[in-house]
């Protein structure tokens, strides 16, 4: 276990009696990229502002390298932020914007020059050093904001939805650049975002937040493949949710459940008893249609009510003949059968890949 750079313990914050962050606990180790993910209003930005020092916690501690910084003003914290609006200084050139933090700390001129030059190179801004922010494109401004923060070599870099102002294509490019820069500099980073694909592709760990509390912490794979609750399952990616009932709990840890009238035994260890209501969760890409279904799996009949060609995949919406349930499926084109397709109204059978399902207890 690496040493924790940032340790947040029992942190709480409320505004006007409204609790925004509740008993938050998190340990982040050196070089880690952690994403706070959640819908707007889940407290992720407040948490970031607490770490940066713009807001003061009501209770709890924030430790940076064994030092409690909960009451340290932002200018005294070795933490730098990339703001959603970038907040570049309009009256300074790119160079002066980036050098601002170093000038404030009275860094030696020679060191200042070499560090700014170095960061300019890493962010490919060398040729723009003497431009003003208004003369830059959105992506270039974003890079200046990044450079201005990392040049100070912060212990923790905070990113407040840094890519949200860019268009989709540029965002993809910047994601790659951002990750490269973070890895090269080995800066401990906390990203706040509501974009799940940003969180999945950039993070070492994701903290899914719900109303100021942690819904789940895990690697992107864990969050996506093994959501711990319905909130996380629904928030990350698309998911099909089928009601089921526990028929039998076997000694070996296996469960037999009844899904839409059909029994299936699966190897899942959740704490439940016979008769409990559970949810069977399936990602669109977990589903198999007609010919692809494994022989051991139960089959549900339905019909295609919508098909969407997506280039690499063919997405379909299937309405089951019974139970008034629609499922989203997503199939990859493969080399053997590049022309496969469905017509609307076509009768199909649907099931899923054994073992890819997620079983969650009913929370209501």
């Amino acid at each position, binding site marked *: 276990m690496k040493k924790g750079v940032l340790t947040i313990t029992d942190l709480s914050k409320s505004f006007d009696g409204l609790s925004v962050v509740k008993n938050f606990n998190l340990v982040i180790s050196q070089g880690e990229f952690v994403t706070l993910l959640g819908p707007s209003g889940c407290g992720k930005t407040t948490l970031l502002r607490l770490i*940066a020092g713009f807001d003061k916690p009501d209770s709890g501690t924030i430790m940076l390298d064994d030092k409690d910084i909960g009451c340290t003003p932002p200018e005294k914290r070795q933490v*730098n932020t990339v703001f959603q609006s970038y907040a570049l200084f309009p009256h300074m050139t790119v160079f002066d914007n980036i050098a601002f933090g170093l000038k*404030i700390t009275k860094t030696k001129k020679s060191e200042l020059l070499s560090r700014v030059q170095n960061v300019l190179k890493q962010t490919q801004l060398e040729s723009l050093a003497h431009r003003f922010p208004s003369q830059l494109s959105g992506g270039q401004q974003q890079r200046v904001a990044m450079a201005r923060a990392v040049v100070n070599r912060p212990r923790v870099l905070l990113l407040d939805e840094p890519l949200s102002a860019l268009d989709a294509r540029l965002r993809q490019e910047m994601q790659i650049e951002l990750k490269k820069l973070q890895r090269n500099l080995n800066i401990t980073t906390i990203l706040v975002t509501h974009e799940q694909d940003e969180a999945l592709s950039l993070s070492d760990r994701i903290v899914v937040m719900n109303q100021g509390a942690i819904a789940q912490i895990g690697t992107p794979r864990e969050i996506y493949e093994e959501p711990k609750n319905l909130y996380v399952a629904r928030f990350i990616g698309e998911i099909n949710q089928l009601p089921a009932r526990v028929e039998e709990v076997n000694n070996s840890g296996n469960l037999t459940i009844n899904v839409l009238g059909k029994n299936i035994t699966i190897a899942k260890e959740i704490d439940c008893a016979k008769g409990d209501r559970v949810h069977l969760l399936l990602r669109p890409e977990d589903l198999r249609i007609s010919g692809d279904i494994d022989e051991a799996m139960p089959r549900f009949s339905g019909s295609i009510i919508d098909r969407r060609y997506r280039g690499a995949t063919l997405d379909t919406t299937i309405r089951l003949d019974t139970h008034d349930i629609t499922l989203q499926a997503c199939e990859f084109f493969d080399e053997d059968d590049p022309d496969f397709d469905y017509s609307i109204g076509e009768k199909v059978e649907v099931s899923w890949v054994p073992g890819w399902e997620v079983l969650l207890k009913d929370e209501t």
Partner: protein
Amino acid sequence: MKPSSRITIITLLGFWLTIFGGLPLLLLLVTSFLGQHPEKFFELNFSLESYRQLLDSSYLDILLRSIKQAVITTLLCLVISYPFVWLTARMNKRNRNIVLILVMIPFWTNSLIRTYAVRIIIGTNGLLNKMLLGLGLIDSPLRLMYSETAVVIGLIYLMLPFMILPLYANLEKFDYRLVEAARDLGAGNTQIFLRIALPLTLPGIIGGSIMVFVPTMGLFYVASLLGGGKNLLVGNLIHQNFLVSQNWPLGAAMSTALILMLLSMLLAYTFILRKMKSREVAG
């Protein structure tokens, strides 16, 4: 806009400017080059006598004193207004409007009457002295009246809104997130003020300063009422030459000199503004 209607508007504007701006200025300029006459307002011959008199040391003294007082007034107005406007611009919209209305209400009263009000407040038996004596802060009344201090107090009181409003118009647009960004990068309050707030609000500061400085040079009645004739300003001289000693050419020459001085300040301001703008607009 159709070209024809545009021409109409430009013609109308040109007409208006010529009649109310250009013509009086031209008359003033012509008068300043006329000869002086002890009994008539002027003599109809070309003369540089008035301009030569301007260089007279007693007049230069008054000009310098006027500039000094205007500079002091402007600086004090700025120092008083800046923090006030900074806080006002951070308020919510409702409170902001209340504060701005409170600033503007005195505007609706004639400035001459307000100058008399200042007399009542700072006079030897005035409100201020009575209050300070009552509180035991002073033993004998302060003699503020008929001094440069009194003139400056009066000028500040009259000119404060002219500083506050241009500053407000500028500071309202100031992006407070830049302050957070600077703080995040390690800047304390002084650094934030010097490196971020000051340069970005410079147009408002210069604009407000000109709005205060220019009229202050000409506000003769404040100097008469509060300075008691001892503290003549350029405005008083012009006033005297036109209305008392009836020396129109000298008054006109003084006015022309004053106008030229203020005009060059405005030009400098426009130049600075344009330089700042060219940075902010893509080039």
